[in-house]
């Protein structure tokens, strides 16, 4: 891979005195989808926090666009184009779809442009534009969070547990959208507990367990036996 857009070098991170990540390495190229897999408590969400700038690592380097940005503020990274969709969707449930999209205009884009692009990508949101976001189905809420993220024209997209609480059919549909987003050149890091759903669209996969990378390589090379080993600890 030439010139990765995002790189983690020997990252260690802790909550107080409890170290959660014990020297993690990761590299993402332009337009690449990397799946970050692992069981509960493996450190996946912590890694997303480190990459997004919400948690400062105790040691190691976070390289974005070729520059060491370890310790950069999360809002500055987000403004530059590193967008995070947190676990639990991160939408405003008491606002309508349109008002949620309005919140993304802070990035300097016009609401009309954002709406046009969003409704072209997610026609279902067009039908729900005046509906309160909190009253939509889980899949539609996730679509809205994706749309809001894309409105900021991100270069790197971090997705934390996209499939949480959703039906497998909806998840497959959402991951097709993720693949389409990556095809446009956006680099995507997807954190996922349910490996099968994401491996179909990922280029690379990284298996994390007990805060360490157990296996990393092409997503197609990650077999059931490798997954079972990492998830069940056998």
């Amino acid at each position: 891979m030439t010139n990765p857009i995002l790189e983690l070098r020997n990252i260690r991170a802790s909550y107080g005195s409890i170290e959660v990540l014990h020297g993690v390495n990761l590299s993402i190229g332009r337009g690449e989808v990397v799946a970050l897999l692992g069981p509960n408590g493996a450190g996946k969400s912590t890694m997303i926090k480190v990459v997004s700038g919400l948690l400062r690592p105790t040691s190691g380097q976070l390289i974005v666009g070729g520059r060491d940005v370890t310790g950069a503020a999360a809002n500055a990274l987000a403004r530059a184009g590193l967008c995070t969709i947190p676990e639990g969707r991160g939408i405003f449930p008491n606002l309508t779809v349109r008002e949620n999209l309005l919140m993304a205009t802070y990035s300097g884009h016009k609401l009309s442009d954002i709406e046009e692009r969003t409704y072209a990508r997610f026609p279902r949101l067009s039908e729900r534009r005046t509906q309160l976001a909190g009253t939509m189905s889980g899949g539609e809420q996730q679509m809205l969070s994706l749309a809001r993220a894309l409105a900021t024209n991100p270069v790197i997209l971090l997705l934390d547990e996209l499939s949480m609480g959703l039906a497998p059919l909806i998840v497959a549909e959402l991951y097709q959208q993720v693949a389409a987003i990556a095809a446009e050149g956006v680099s995507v890091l997807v954190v996922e507990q349910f490996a099968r759903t994401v491996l179909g669209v990922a280029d690379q996969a990284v298996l994390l367990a007990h805060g360490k990378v157990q296996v990393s390589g092409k997503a197609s090379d990650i077999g059931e036996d490798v997954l079972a080993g990492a998830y069940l600890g056998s």
Partner: protein
Amino acid sequence: MNEDRIQTFTEEIGELKLRGARADRERWLLILGGLGLVAGVGLAIFGGFQASGTTNLGDQVAFLATGTLIGLALVIAGAALFIRYSIARFMRFWLVRLVHEHRSETDRVISALKEIETKLNK
């Protein structure tokens, strides 16, 4: 995505200001809280002793204001910091223990399943 966007992104990243803050801020706040608590108690006692050791009303007020009142404020602020971060540490260790127990239980279930599988294959 066009090259211009990547170029803009790289430039903006290049202009980012980096914080020099340490990652173990929580530990330092806990220590600061403890020190504030001890210093506050000491100051309050010192102020009280000094105030009782003089008959001059002006000196008494000054000792009480600078010693006892500041000491008490330090005690309250220090205790708040100390309790806040002590509880956070305790809750975190508790969570780690739960995760550890959960993993041990999974290991036990897997070994039991393997044992059953071996016996069934015999």
